[in-house]
């Protein structure tokens, strides 16, 4: 039987039977699911608590007198209400504020038009959302008022007409004239995810290769093994074995996360959607017309989930615009060769030291390009075709990360081919170099090895 495959088998089997592997396989999806679900949870929980802001309007510009009583010009939302109080001075109100149960006091001075400032009083910091909402509403109201002062005929109609909400749609077309509508945000997200996954995979499993080499050195079994197989076979067997372990873990995570997220969403979220309604119903028991309120809130919830559906639909259509074959293919390519390239370097580091604490200074120069790749990737999101991302997607040490974020936007074929061949070529060269350093390094003990010394090893004929 082929010895390299025996080594791969051992590396793979001992690793997937480890407790840490099993724990990570189980915990990983939960962490993953938490990443996806917790923001969703917060998004749905957001401002579900009803807040009432009391408006003391000295300018009277924001007060509207209707037959039902006085209301505020600022429109309330589902969870933020405005209530105009008249005839109570601010100071008096502030005294009784704590018992009143109100969220905040909005004080509008009489000179609001000239001073252009109002005050929000509260015993605790008001949320940014609420502050922004009040600011925006007041700004638009004051703009209206100022415009109205100019006494333009039919101003209301003109304003309504002028109001514009621009929707920028991006459409890409191929040489054949085929057009596709794309969603830059989603495309960007997919590329970003791909690049990050590659980064983490390289980092996590690369250092496992390194630790494996150190373990063999420290336990001194290395001499027995390399009397049975060539050092290069051992190194490659370890790199491939650890890589397969990583792929297995990823596969488990993907499948398990998918099941978990779908399962949790189905089981957990309907309940979640009801919670605010029940809360409202609860408080409304003490009021009249509670039942009506309940209905409107349920309706609001329904609308909200409807919007979610629309968004999901939009994401799905956008995802369809990315050529899945190209994306998955290039992901796998950069994923595998990026890992192989870096794993060879990590193996070299492992062969150079006797214990893990000595690795730190040696790791830094190796992972620096990777970290640089992440920075370039982030900047590439704004302009994937500019010079910086272009060059970094050609350099093999950063291309696995940077190219991933460019590919969803469409990269000319020749660039992918050049970048891919450079990566493969560098991988082969690096493995050859690594093999040479490795076989010298694994038999060295007790010496602190510097990069200068490695240069000397490279020139050894043996």
């Amino acid at each position, binding site marked *: *039987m082929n*010895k390299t495959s*025996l*080594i791969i088998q*051992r590396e793979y089997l*001992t690793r997937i039977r480890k407790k840490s592997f099993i724990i990570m396989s189980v915990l990983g999806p939960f962490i993953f699911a938490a990443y996806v679900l917790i923001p969703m949870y917060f998004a749905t929980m957001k401002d579900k608590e009803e807040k009432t802001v009391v408006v003391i309007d000295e300018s009277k510009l924001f007060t509207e007198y209707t037959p039902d009583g006085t209301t505020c010009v600022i429109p309330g939302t589902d969870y933020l209400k405005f209530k105009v109080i008249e005839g109570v001075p601010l100071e008096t109100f502030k005294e009784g504020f704590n018992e009143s149960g109100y969220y905040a006091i909005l004080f509008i001075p009489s000179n609001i038009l000239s001073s252009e400032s109002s005050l929000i009083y509260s015993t605790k910091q008001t949320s940014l959302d609420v502050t922004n909402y009040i600011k925006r509403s007041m700004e638009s109201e004051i703009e209206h008022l100022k415009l109205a002062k100019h006494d333009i005929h039919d101003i209301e109609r003109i304003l309504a007409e002028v109001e514009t909400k621009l929707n920028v749609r991006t459409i890409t077309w191929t040489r054949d004239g085929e057009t596709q509508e794309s969603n830059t945000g989603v495309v960007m997200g997919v590329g970003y995810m791909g690049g990050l996954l590659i980064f983490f995979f390289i980092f996590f499993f690369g250092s496992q290769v390194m630790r494996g080499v150190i*373990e*063999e050195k420290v*336990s*001194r*079994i*290395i*001499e*027995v*093994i*390399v*009397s*049975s*197989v*060539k050092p290069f076979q051992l190194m490659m067997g370890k790199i491939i074995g650890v890589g397969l372990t990583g792929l297995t873990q990823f596969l488990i995570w993907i499948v398990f996360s998918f099941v978990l997220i779908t399962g949790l969403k189905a089981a957990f979220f309907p309940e979640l959607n009801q919670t605010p309604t029940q809360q409202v119903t609860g408080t409304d028991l003490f009021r009249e017309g509670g039942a009506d309120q309940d209905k409107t809130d349920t309706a609001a919830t329904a609308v909200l989930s409807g919007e979610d559906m629309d968004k999901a639909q939009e994401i799905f259509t956008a995802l369809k615009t990315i050529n899945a074959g190209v994306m998955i293919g290039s992901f796998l390519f950069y994923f595998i060769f990026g890992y192989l390239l870096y794993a060879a370097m990590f193996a070299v580091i492992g062969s150079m030291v006797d214990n893990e604490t000595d690795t730190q200074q040696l790791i830094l120069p190796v992972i620096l390009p990777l970290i640089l790749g992440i920075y370039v990737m982030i900047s590439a999101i704004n302009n994937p075709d500019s010079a910086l991302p272009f060059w970094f997607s050609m350099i093999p040490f950063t291309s696995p990360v940077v190219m991933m974020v460019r590919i969803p936007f469409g990269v000319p074929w020749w660039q992918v081919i050049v970048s891919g061949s450079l990566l493969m070529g560098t991988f082969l060269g690096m493995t050859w170099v690594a093999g040479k350093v490795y*076989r010298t390094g694994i*038999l060295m003990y007790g010496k602190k090895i510097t990069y200068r010394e490695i240069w*000397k090893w490279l020139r050894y*004929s*043996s």
Partner: protein
Amino acid sequence: MNLITADAVVKDFRGHRALNKVSIEVPEGSIYGLLGPNGAGKTTLLRIINQITAPDQGAILFRGEPIGNKHRAMIGYLPEERGLYKKMKVGEQALYLARLKGLSRQEAMKRLRVWFEKFEISAWWDKKVEELSKGMAQKVQFITTVLHEPGLLIFDEPFSGFDPINVDLLKQEILQMKKQGATIIFSTHNMSSVEELCDHITLINESETLLQGEISKIRKKYRANKYHVTFMGEPEKLTAGLETGFEVLQLDENGMGQQATIRITKDGGPNDLLKNLVEITEVKAFREILPGMNDIFIQVVKTASRKTNRTT
């Protein structure tokens, strides 16, 4: 026929020559001892024979052909620094190492059962190596070294780290393997084991060969013309009656009778001494004292370092 021939092997490390034109010839079926002080280059030579490192100059021949990858399965190697995967189970690990040497899974299992029973360690099959005592781990490692029944066994300091009982067990196993036709090369500091086991030796000092050959011939070469006599009678009579040229080095008495160590300093053989002795005492036993390997080792190495000190 020589199983292993090392031909003028040179190995350089940074600023240091570990082996300088060292040649050895290991006859098939013999036990070959590699002696020398620490840092002499023994381990480097053994690693080169094991193809762990390559020589800078010179060559290693296995049955007359340059040693290569196919010979790996014909060699079993027990390095000086013993080691196994600590987190791996004993049985699984032994199986893995055996398969790396080219044994099939079934064959390896079969042989491992026999060996584990022989060494009475069957109960340890499912234990992790880190749970074993040092001696136990050494036994496991010894089994993995010999399991594939290689024609050549290479032991680097095999007796270090074993207790006397296990040293004896190991010696018996080595002799047994020789009987079955295996060739054994080992390096050691333990000179009594050299006298007991080795047919040939090479003494390496400061990267060079100092002494080489069949052990019996070497001991004869370094004989100091000393004889041991057991006799009846007055010790004074012996001292007084000896001719010039026969020098008494030591005299004492034990349960067997009077003992004397005598050196011949003039021309002439043991017969002359014996004739002289018979005239003055009643000789009960008479034998030549051959120098121990220990003495030869110390003598040769000291002479060599004196020489280098003079030249440098």
